[in-house]
C-alpha cells in the first residue's frame, strides 16, 4: 500500500513536468504578447520591458530559468498584476475556490448518494421516476443556465438570498448549489445504478434471509459495494467542479482563481497561465491519487503491490 502510494507520487512528478513544458511552449508560440496594447509601445520601451522580465533571452534559456525558479517555489512575477508575484495572486483566490469547490463536492456526494439509494430502493415507483427525471434534468442543464435562473428566482424575485459577493454564509448558498447541482445529478444516477446492482447480489439476499433489519443491510452491506463507482467518479468530478467554478465565479462575481483561467490566457500573462495550470493539474492529480488509495479501503479485493 505505502509502496504503491509512493510509486504513484513518483509518477505525478513527470506528468506535471510534461504538462508544464507543454503549456510553456504552447503559450509562447501563440501569437501576441503580454505587452500588446491598443497603442503599440515604442520599440525601445518594449525592448526595455521585455529585458527586465527576461523575455529577450532565447526561449530555451527562458524555459530553463523558469523551471529553475519553479523548483525553488517561485512562479515569477505576473505580467498584468504588476508588483505582484504569481503565487501571491493565486494565494488570495485559492482559499475561496477551494471552499466553493469542496463544499459543492461534499454536497454532491451526500445528496447524490442519498437520492440514488432512495431511488434504487423504490425502483420503478413514483419516487424513483421523480428522482431519475430530476437527475436527467440536472445532467442536461449546464450550471451557467442554472445559476442565472436560481439568481432570478431567489435573489431578484423573492430577495431571499444575495445575488453576488463572498464572505457571509448566505452569499455561499447560490454559488454552491449552482455548482453542485449537475454533480448531484451525476452522482445520483451512478449511485442508483450501482445500488440496484448491489441489492441484487447474493450476500445481500443472504443478509436479508437472516432477517437483518433493512437499514442495516442497505447502510452497511449494500452501501459498501455500491459506493465504488461513485468513488471512482470523484476524480472527474473534481475536474468538472474546477471547470464549473470558472463560470460560477464569473456569474456571482467571486474573487476566486477561476477568473484567472480565462483572463490570464487572453492577456498572455505567461507566468500567471503557468501558475494556474500547475495548481489545477496538481489538484486533479493528487485527487485521483487519493481516490485510488481510498479504493483499497472500501474494496479489500483491490490490492496494490
Amino acid at each position, binding site marked *: 500500500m505505502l509502496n504503491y502510494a509512493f510509486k504513484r507520487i513518483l509518477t505525478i512528478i513527470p506528468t506535471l513536468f510534461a*504538462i508544464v513544458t507543454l503549456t510553456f511552449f504552447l503559450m509562447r508560440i501563440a501569437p501576441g504578447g503580454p505587452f500588446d496594447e491598443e497603442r503599440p509601445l515604442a520599440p525601445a520601451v518594449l525592448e526595455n520591458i521585455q529585458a527586465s522580465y527576461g523575455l529577450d533571452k532565447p526561449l530555451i534559456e527562458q524555459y530553463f530559468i523558469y523551471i529553475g525558479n519553479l523548483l525553488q517555489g517561485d512562479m515569477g512575477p505576473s505580467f498584468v498584476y504588476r508588483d505582484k508575484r504569481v503565487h501571491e495572486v493565486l494565494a488570495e483566490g485559492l482559499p475561496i475556490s477551494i471552499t466553493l469547490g469542496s463544499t459543492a463536492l461534499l454536497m454532491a456526494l451526500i445528496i447524490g448518494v442519498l437520492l440514488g439509494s432512495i431511488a434504487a430502493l423504490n425502483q420503478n415507483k413514483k419516487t424513483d421516476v421523480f428522482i431519475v427525471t430530476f437527475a436527467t434534468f440536472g445532467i442536461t442543464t449546464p450550471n451557467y443556465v442554472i445559476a442565472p435562473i436560481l439568481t432570478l428566482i431567489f435573489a431578484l424575485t423573492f430577495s431571499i438570498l444575495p445575488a453576488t459577493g463572498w464572505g457571509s454564509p448566505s452569499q455561499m448558498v447560490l454559488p454552491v448549489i449552482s455548482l453542485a447541482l449537475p454533480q448531484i445529478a451525476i452522482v445520483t444516477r451512478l449511485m442508483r445504478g450501482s445500488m440496484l446492482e448491489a441489492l441484487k447480489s447474493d450476500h445481500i439476499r443472504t443478509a436479508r434471509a437472516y432477517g437483518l433489519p433493512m437499514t442495516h443491510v442497505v447502510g452497511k452491506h449494500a452501501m459498501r459495494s455500491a459506493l465504488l463507482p461513485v468513488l471512482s467518479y470523484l476524480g472527474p468530478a473534481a475536474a468538472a467542479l474546477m471547470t464549473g467554478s470558472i463560470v460560477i465565479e464569473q456569474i456571482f462575481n467571486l474573487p476566486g482563481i477561476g477568473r484567472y483561467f480565462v483572463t490570464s490566457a487572453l492577456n498572455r500573462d505567461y507566468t500567471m497561465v503557468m501558475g494556474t495550470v500547475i495548481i489545477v493539474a496538481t489538484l486533479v492529480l493528487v485527487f485521483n491519487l487519493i481516490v485510488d488509495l481510498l479504493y483499497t479501503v472500501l474494496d479489500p479485493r483491490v490490492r496494490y503491490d
Partner: protein
Amino acid sequence: MTETVLTHDNKPLEGVVKGRSLLDTALLRLKRNRAAMVSLWVIICMTLAAIIGPTISSHSYDEVYNHFVGEKPSIGAYPKQEQITPITERALSRARVDMEDMNISKDSIKIYIVNRKQEPLDPRITRYLLRADIFQNVELEISQDDPQRGVISADIRPLRFLMGTDQNGRDLLTRILVSLRISLMVGALATGVALIIGVTYGAVSGFIGGNIDNLMMRFVDLLYSLPFVFFVILLVVFFGNNIFLIFIAVGCIQWLDMARIVRGQTLQLKQQEFVQASEALGVNLSNIIKRHIIPNLAGTVVVYMTLLIPRVILLESFLSFLGLGVQEPLTSLGVLIAEGARYMRNDPYLLIFPALTMSILLFALNFLGDGLRDALDPKDR
C-alpha cells in the same frame, strides 16, 4: 426484407426464412424504447429547423430593428398601431419634410407632406421610410400644382417576433435557429474528428498489441491527466477566434475515450472464434477488419458518438458563455444564454428560450444515446 436466400449454385433455397441481423434486432429494440424514439424525432426536427429555419425565417440573424429593441415575445404582428406614428415622424424628420396629415388604415398608410425648404420634393426621400423597417412599397406622388407638397403611400410591413427581440433589436427566434445550427455543426465536426482519430488509434493499438500497444496507451493516460478545459482555452488563444479550427482541435483532444473503448473491443474481437476462423480460411487482414471488426465495433462507436455530441455542444456553449467562442454577430446557444442572463431581470424570456432550447437538445441527445446503448449492448439481452 424480401431478399431470397441462395444456395451455393445460386438457386433460391425454399422454405428458409432470412434471419434477423444484429442491426435488425437493435433497431427493433430501439423502436420499443419510447423515450429514445421521441428523442430521435426531436433531434430530427431540431436538425431540420437548424438547416432550413434561418433561410425561411423572414428575418436575418444579424438584422437590427432599431425601433423594436427588447420587444416581448408575441404572436401578433409589429408595428403596433401606436408605434406607427412616432416611427413615421422620426423618418420624416430625417427626410427633412413636414407632415400635414396622415391616414393610417390597417395595413397601409397615407402621409401628406410638405418640404421644409422652399424646394421641390426629392423623390429619393422614400428611402428614409424604407429604412424605418416597417414600410414596404413606398411611393411618393408629388402634387401637380405644388412641387413642394406630395403624398406618400406605403404598405405597412408586418413583422413578427415570436420569441421577441434582443437588446439590439434582433429577432430571437432566428438567432436561436442559427445558434442551433452552429451548435450542431460544431458538435458533428468535433465528434467526427474524435471518431477518426480515436477509432484509428484504438484499432491500431489493439491490433498490434504488445509493447507498442502499451506505449500508445501510456500516452493516452498522460493526456488524460491534462487539465482539459485549460488546454481548450489555450487553443482558443492559439487559433484566435476561429470557432471551427477550435473545434477541430477539441476533436483532437476528445478522442481519448474513443481510443480506449475501441482498443478494448478490438482486443476482445481478435480473440473471437469467427475472426480466427476467417484467418484460418485465409482471409486477408483488410478484409477481416472490413467484414468482422468494423461491423462489430460500429455499435459501440455509434453509442459513444451520440454521447460525445452533447458534451461537445456543452463545451462550445461554455466557451461562448465566457466570450471565447463564436463572435458577434454570429451566435450560439452559449452566447444567447450569457446575454439572456445579463438582461434577465427585465426580459426573462431572453434567458428562458435559449436555455430551454439547449436543455431540450441535450435531453434528447442523452436519451437517444442511452436508448442506443441499451439497444446495441449485447450483454443486456
